[in-house]
């Protein structure tokens, strides 16, 4: 009888051990399947993934926002012409509720002097994020508290976030688009080296006209959630003693955005935060609407260079940003810029030689 009992206990012990082993293995297989099936293209995930490869406290300027920001802020120009160490941590149509968690995640390893916050989300009317955008803007975040926080902020009902948190329910149908490179581990930043600073070039030309609008101070109410999270960002940055600058990126479709931007400026004023609106018709810095845009919103490579020169100039004027070009600790910026200028030889920098 005792033998039988011992035998039974042994059998059950083995069973539970095997069950635990199977669960662990299944978890690993599912995690890898999720990794393979997760879209890895540029518009958000890559810059976040690459962010973790950056040396600690190596950024003076952190740009956070939408595609207007990642296509507009050419970090290579900021580096080569002004020695500004800037990183672009943006994703397509990134709302402020994602920006908030992205900034929180970034501040774990970086202590930038300035955060450039895209003003574009002030025009978004949606209360929650679209599925594809949620994946793009959250799947790169590694810190679980910020990743889950961002996912929860993106969905209306808490239970809807379960699919995003588990991962596979959201990305499993991507099997049709899986490429061989998706199986490679670790992620390769879409073919870039880890020196990359998050600038995503849009290499196309579309002819546009300068937006015609009456430059009023009339406001149009922002979406309540966007405003609430913008306030949270301002408060977080104040707490961390980081300067915030709101940026209105030039875009041909600006006329419909203007009044929303005014509302955002007003909110920012309450926190003593300023703005740089590059859509102001009085501002002349050589941007051509006929040749410097890739589409109805985004600056192309040439436009990003023109714009970034002006941005760098303004940043230098407003903030005491050091020139890091001779600093060994910032060599990745130099390498990134060199790689980029090699790729676009027709866009010659006026400053890269100066830094050498």
């Amino acid at each position: 009888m005792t033998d039988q009992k011992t035998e039974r206990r042994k059998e059950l012990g083995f069973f539970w051990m095997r069950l635990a082993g199977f669960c662990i293995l299944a978890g690993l297989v599912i995690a890898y399947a999720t990794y393979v099936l997760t879209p890895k293209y540029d518009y958000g995930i890559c810059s976040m993934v690459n962010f973790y490869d950056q040396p600690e406290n190596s950024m003076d300027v952190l740009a956070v926002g939408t595609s207007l920001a990642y296509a507009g802020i050419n970090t290579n120009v900021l580096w080569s012409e002004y020695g500004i160490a800037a990183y672009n941590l943006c994703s397509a149509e990134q709302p402020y509720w994602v920006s908030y968690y992205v900034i929180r995640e970034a501040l774990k390893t970086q202590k930038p002097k300035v955060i450039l916050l895209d003003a574009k989300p002030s025009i978004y009317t949606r209360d929650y994020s679209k599925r594809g955008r949620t994946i793009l803007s959250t799947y790169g975040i590694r810190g679980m508290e910020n990743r889950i926080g961002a996912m929860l902020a993106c969905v209306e009902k808490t239970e809807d976030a379960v699919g995003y948190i588990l991962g596979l329910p959201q990305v499993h149908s991507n099997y049709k688009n899986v490429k061989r490179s998706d199986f490679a581990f670790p992620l390769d930043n879409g073919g870039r080296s880890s020196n990359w600073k998050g600038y995503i070039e849009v290499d196309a030309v579309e002819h546009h006209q300068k937006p015609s609008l009456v430059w009023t101070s009339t406001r149009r109410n922002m979406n309540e959630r966007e405003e609430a999270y913008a306030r949270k960002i301002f408060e977080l940055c104040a707490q961390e003693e980081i300067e915030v600058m709101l940026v209105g990126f030039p875009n041909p479709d600006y006329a419909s955005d203007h009044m929303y931007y005014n509302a955002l400026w007003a909110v920012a004023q309450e926190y003593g935060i300023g703005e740089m609106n590059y859509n102001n018709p009085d501002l002349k810095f050589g941007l051509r609407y006929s040749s410097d845009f890739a589409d109805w919103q985004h600056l192309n490579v040439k436009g990003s260079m023109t714009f970034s020169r002006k941005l760098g100039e303004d940043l230098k004027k407003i903030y005491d940003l050091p020139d890091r070009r001779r600093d060994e600790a910032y060599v990745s910026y130099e390498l990134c810029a060199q790689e980029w200028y090699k790729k676009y030889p027709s866009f010659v920098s006026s400053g890269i030689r100066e830094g050498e």
Partner: protein
Amino acid sequence: MSILSFEFLLLAAGTLIIYYVLPIGVRWLALLGGSAFFVIMAGWQSIIHLTGIAAVTWLGGLLLERLEKKKMWLCAFLALELGAMLWVKYDAASVTVLGLSYVTFQSAGFLIDVYRGKVKAQKNPLKIWLFTGYFLQLAQGPISSWKELGDQLLTGHCLEPVSFVSGFSLMLWGYFKKMVLADRLAAATEILVGDISDFPGWILILCVILYIIRLYGDFSGGMDVVRGISRMLGIELPLNFLRPFFSLSVAEYWRRWHITLGGWFRSYLMYPLTASRAGLKLGKFASRFLGKKTGRVLPTALATFLVFLLIGIWHSFSWNAVIYGAYFGLLMAISILLDPLWRKQNRRWKLNEKKWISPLRMVRTWILIIPAQFFAFTESTSKSLGVLKQCFVNWDFSNAFGQLTGIMPEWEWMIAWLAFLAVLLVDLFCEIGFDPCKKLAKARIWVRWPVLLALLLTILVFGIYGPSGDSSAFLYTQF
């Protein structure tokens, strides 16, 4: 709570853990707790209905053992239970109740069994509540008798590793059938209820065949999931599907398709009808005019017709359901009446000894089954007739590939066919006596784990679920 939901999996896992943690004598309380949670999540209408039915069943059982005039009381209790079902099903459109007819049939079956003296009434109302509302069979059956399920629920089971793994495999297989096969075909079969004027006849016939495959994957997949989880708990639920694709006759098809529903109607309606005084009188009367053989089977044929008519109406209170039931009833009645003739022909030509006859019989069976499906996918007779009519016009194959990929992308077709082949292959193995789930449970770890992981991964990657897939509800939960 759908059995496809994450919440359901959590509930099942929680119930399993609590079940095996509790002392063996009170393990049924874990099932009771799990079932109560499941019903509470379904809403107050389900709670009231289920508790009401359980109360009538409990009280009815006790009274039937004690009172005189048992038949009258039985009729009264059955009228209460079936009346509530009919009221909810056909009159109270706003009332949505979980497992309406499954609960009713199971409870009614219990009362009839108590009346017949086959089972004893239960003193503990919670035990009856569990029998009536066991959460794994609440959504879409199977319909079990007390003998099949009652004792199994109340007797605590020890953890048996082989059964546990076999149950887990069966559960995964069920999810595969539902999520990879059935839900993938939903898009293709949905065209039948839309505007069909642009579709050639061959596409519509294909879609009707796909509808049968979808229905099988959907319903039998759901059954495999609940049977699998039950098996993990040590409870063996009755079989509801026995590989109907291999049926050699329509009668056999109905012995393999929705077995417990057919079984319930046979036990509690057809046999009592044929053995009733009226049935026997009819048999004698018919024998005088139609001969002994025909006279003997006529009551059975008529009772069978009636049963199928009722099964049709059980599906919905529409003319399509009547046509569906009457069609099968007629086929079955004719086959019963002509059975002596078939037997004679079989003996004469020695057909049963010939191997080639079985595939031909399967084809014949499906030729007879497919027309009925035109009345199964919709409640609208004009729609069914419209599809049927369109099947005979416009047999244009010039853009066949384009037409096919128009209703479902190329990738999806490929996955659907591969999944169907897998289902067919596994069914074929089972048909020749090789049960893959049970074999797998006993297989070596280096065979078992890769197979289970591959199955799990296939479901999670190729299954239709999540926001991109929008998986369909089970087709039979509405009953």
